[in-house]
């Protein structure tokens, strides 16, 4: 299942190192766009949780079980992010997040091949030419248990 929202409640939890200590957290997203995307069309920005900024270059995106840095995604014109499939966003943070509610924000967009120049950035966000139409910032208040 997927939820209607971009940020999915299912999949939001801390991650743990080999000793069982929290070393970060992860959550899942979908695009809500009507078509899938080649990974090289995808553009990512920062993740912000409760006001704390996790810069885009420290965030890992996982598609179909494989981790990618933003830099690695740029060159994957062979991986298709199927419409309605989710990606997992992974963030390192010593101690993880505390149990309870968190304001989670994720920024992303994509390059699409119509109605504008494919590589033109209109807002300087680095999130591709589709941001003007579909928005690039997504927020949700989410409850974390573990």
């Amino acid at each position, binding site marked *: 299942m997927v939820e209607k929202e971009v940020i999915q409640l299912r999949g939001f939890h801390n991650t743990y190192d080999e000793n069982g200590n929290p070393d970060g957290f992860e959550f899942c997203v979908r695009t809500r766009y009507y078509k899938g995307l080649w990974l090289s069309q995808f553009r990512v920005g920062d993740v912000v949780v409760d006001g704390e900024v996790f810069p885009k270059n420290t965030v890992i995106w996982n598609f179909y079980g494989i981790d990618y840095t933003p830099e690695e995604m740029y060159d994957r014109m062979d991986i298709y992010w199927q419409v309605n499939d989710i990606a997992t966003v992974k963030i390192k943070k010593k101690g993880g997040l505390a149990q309870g509610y968190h304001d989670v924000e994720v920024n992303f967009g994509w390059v699409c091949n*119509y*109605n*504008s120049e494919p590589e033109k950035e209109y807002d300087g966000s680095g999130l591709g030419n589709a941001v003007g139409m579909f928005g690039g910032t997504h927020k949700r208040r989410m409850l974390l248990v573990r």
Partner: protein
Amino acid sequence: MSEAMKEVKKGAPKRGVSVYSYSQLLGYCMTLEDCFKDIYDTGATCFELLTSHVENYPNPSPAWVDKYWRLCEKYKLQPAEMGHWAETHLHRGPRLTDDEILEQLIRDFKLANLLGFTTLRTKITCINEFCDPEPGWEKYIERALPYAEKYNVRMCTEVHRPTTLTMRVIDEYLEFIERTGTKYFGFNIDFGTFQNKPIPNLPDGKFAERDRRYIEEGYYSKPEDILRVLPYTYACHAKFNYMDENFEEQTIPYKEVLDIMINNGWSGFLLSEYEGPKRDDFSYLSDQLRRQHIMLNRILGY
């Protein structure tokens, strides 16, 4: 009426639905079968699928392909058009080479052929709001023509609002078709290009503002403008924004356009594409689709 005009046999467009109409619901709360079941109720005989609707595109499993054909048979629906994209910016730096673009086009031709589609909505990369194509498009499209013939698919460039049928870009495509003499590249005319009234009851915002602006600034085609592209038009998106309770579309002069097309012998695929408000509300969407197909049924007589 001249003798030549009298000889034109009336056309019989094939009434269909684009699964795009369900794109805010498909995969979220509807399956492909749910869409087909709803399409069957409209009396449509054919459909459009986008490549994204093909499970595990571009490599669907044989099990999915089998299931797809079973659904076509069960709901008596003929594959009409597959919407795909001629992507040209899939890596850093300059655009893809013609070889790379061609490789993707051939991949999609094979897929369309496997799934029974004879028409493609080929989205050529554009560089502005009016969908002027990125220069150089004719080089890779021309190289793709023999493969389109081999796999029996017609690439159709979409003429979409605010592009009108009298713009320079249409001449550019017509020149290409006439120069090459091809039957494997043509047009998909989106009926939104004929929209000459604003969408009623649209919430205030940038979409409503743009909707009004296009009309005020004259960015719409006249029904008779379709004649110049009609011989090369293999499919149309029967775009609609609001069907009223009298089964009339309130923003697009459907009867005028369709009468011209039928009287000039057009028998291509006419594929419903709902793009009005509340697309994420199945009951509203399905009611709108049914209303539109009552209108089309009354105009076409079937």
